[in-house]
């Protein structure tokens, strides 16, 4: 029965995703269409060009075709898996995104994990020691991190660890002058460490604050009162009842944070010149690479949706408390 419910749920979600994608496609296409930016200009850049070539390009980009026709062409191609040609990288958008997204996923996944684990531990400690100096230190740290501009923190990390200490390279995902194939695994790791740490540091704050508050809420619940009345106390009490009840909501929150994770990655990638999807998005935006920008919008929408979907599944199918609430209402 549960499998059937899950199947039904997934089906509903896929339908929802399709609707969402259609709307996002229409809306973002419409927004870009409003823009006074000229795709041919963006493509040509500084090159000099013959008028007939220009006319050809204009035809290719559909400068003179009406918007709705242009949209239908574009959308039709997307259905076929063709996102068009990136203006700045001069290759298919799908290839650019594949390469860039892989790099970003490694960065985002590792910092997502690190920030989740570190944040959860800090939150539990702060909540446990609620009101003490330790709690105040952790709280202050989180407040400052939430207020810190992502890119500034990245700059400071770069300044300290790359410029002064010289432990890490100043930029680029791979060393300059090496062909992509020659890059060793260690090189990649070396270039990944600083961006990952920066991105994790930022993610720690929200999850730690949430875990702290949730733990305090749980610790003032009736069942903790009863556990205390039965002689449970200290670390054992928190291990037995606290973490059990805080873990699922915290994991759920971590999945709901995909949107912010992406935003953080954009800034961090920019500072560290890490060749990920975020950096590509900025380049596409700055240099009016409309096909690439739209492609990234679509991919990131799916990415965020996936995070929300996992959170929903945890909420609906794994956490037994939900059924309890359904019963009482």
């Amino acid at each position: 029965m549960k499998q059937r419910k899950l199947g039904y749920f997934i089906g509903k979600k896929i339908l929802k995703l399709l609707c969402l994608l259609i709307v996002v496609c229409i809306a973002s296409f419409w927004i870009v269409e409003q823009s006074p930016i000229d795709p041919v200009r963006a493509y040509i850049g500084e090159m000099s060009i013959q008028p007939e070539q220009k006319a050809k390009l204009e035809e290719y980009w559909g400068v003179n075709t009406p918007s709705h026709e242009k949209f239908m062409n574009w959308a039709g191609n997307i259905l076929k898996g063709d996102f068009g040609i990136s203006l700045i990288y001069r290759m298919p958008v799908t290839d650019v995104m594949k390469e860039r997204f892989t790099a970003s996923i490694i960065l985002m996944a590792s910092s997502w994990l690190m920030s989740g684990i570190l944040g959860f531990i800090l939150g539990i400690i702060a909540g446990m020691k609620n009101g003490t100096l330790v709690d105040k230190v952790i709280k202050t740290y989180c407040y400052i991190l939430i207020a810190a501009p992502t890119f500034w923190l990245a700059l400071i990390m770069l300044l300290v660890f790359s410029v002064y200490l010289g432990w890490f390279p100043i930029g680029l995902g791979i060393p300059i002058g090496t062909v992509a194939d020659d890059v060793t695994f260690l090189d990649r790791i070396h270039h990944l460490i600083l961006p990952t740490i920066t991105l994790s540091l930022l993610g720690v704050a929200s999850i730690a604050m949430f875990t702290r508050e949730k733990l305090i809420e749980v610790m003032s619940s009736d069942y903790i009162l009863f556990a205390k009345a039965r002689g449970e106390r200290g670390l054992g009490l928190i291990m037995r009842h606290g973490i059990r009840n805080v873990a699922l909501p915290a994991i759920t929150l971590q999945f709901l944070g995909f949107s912010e994770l992406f935003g953080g990655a954009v800034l961090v990638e920019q500072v560290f010149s890490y060749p990920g999807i975020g950096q590509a998005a900025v380049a596409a935006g700055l240099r009016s690479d409309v096909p690439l920008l739209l492609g990234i919008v679509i991919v990131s929408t799916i990415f965020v949706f996936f995070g929300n979907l996992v959170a929903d599944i945890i909420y609906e199918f794994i956490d037994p408390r939900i059924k309890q609430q359904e019963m009482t209402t």
Partner: protein
Amino acid sequence: MEDIDRITTKKARNNEALLKVKDISLSFIQYTSGLRQTELKVISNLNLEAYSGEILAVVGSSGSGKSLLAHAILGILPSNARLYGSMEYNGQPLTQEKKEEIRGKEIALIPQSTNYLDPLMRISNQVIGNVNEKNKESIKKLQRYVFQKYNLKPEVDRMFPHELSGGMIRRVLVSTAVISSARLVIADEPTPGLDEKNLKETLSYFKDMANKGCAVILITHDIDAALKISDRIAIFYAGTILEEANIEDFANDGENLRHPYTRALWNALPQNKFKAIKGHQPMQDEIIEGCFFYERCSIKNELCSKGIPELKTINGGLVRCNNVS
């Protein structure tokens, strides 16, 4: 004289009270709108004695702070609570440290609802509690035995709290106290929502515990249930106990009852005169200079509005009233 004789000859009364609550008051520090700090008094000048082998019922209307009395005895009040006065357990002062040491072992709480069970932990693990590995097997066996007695099937062991019915939850909660081998059991509102059969059954559990030598404090708003099984009844009103009477005093027209409120309460019962008392209990945020029952009392005099009446022992019961002798 006859009364006193009967009390002294009664089974457990020759020894000291297991728990003595002496003149406790409880208040909460709160912040109201605009962060003004206020102190809200919920229990004032409350005295209570619980004897081994007896059931003491604390009867009062819902939401009047009775549960907080239980929490105060167990030392599980929230951090913004201030507790004044003293308690004694087994002849020794019951301090917060002592409470933390003996709760769960000597003193057990039977809470009122499913909210007191961890929603994400299987029933059997909760009932067993946090025990070290080597005792686990034997306690697990004991738990199964107690569950069997209370007609809880083996599959209940692996269920989560939300999968159980109200009656089952009640039995699970009672069994936590049974397997703890506590000497003092405090049951907080164990009767609401139970049908006649379940009610009788639940009450019989408490009788069993008392017969085994436990001191049972039964906190309830249901005076009928209290009359059925308890040995003594304490009347909780506006954060204090107006009278602690023996069960035998509740007879006829209540002429043996000491406090006018207890008498009025007795007369309000359907099987008696079914005559309700006028007025309502004072609110928690009202300051009352004199007797808490002053506003509604039929035999008040001027003295009653000045200061809380002294606690007197009359006919083997305790009472706070100026006009009894």
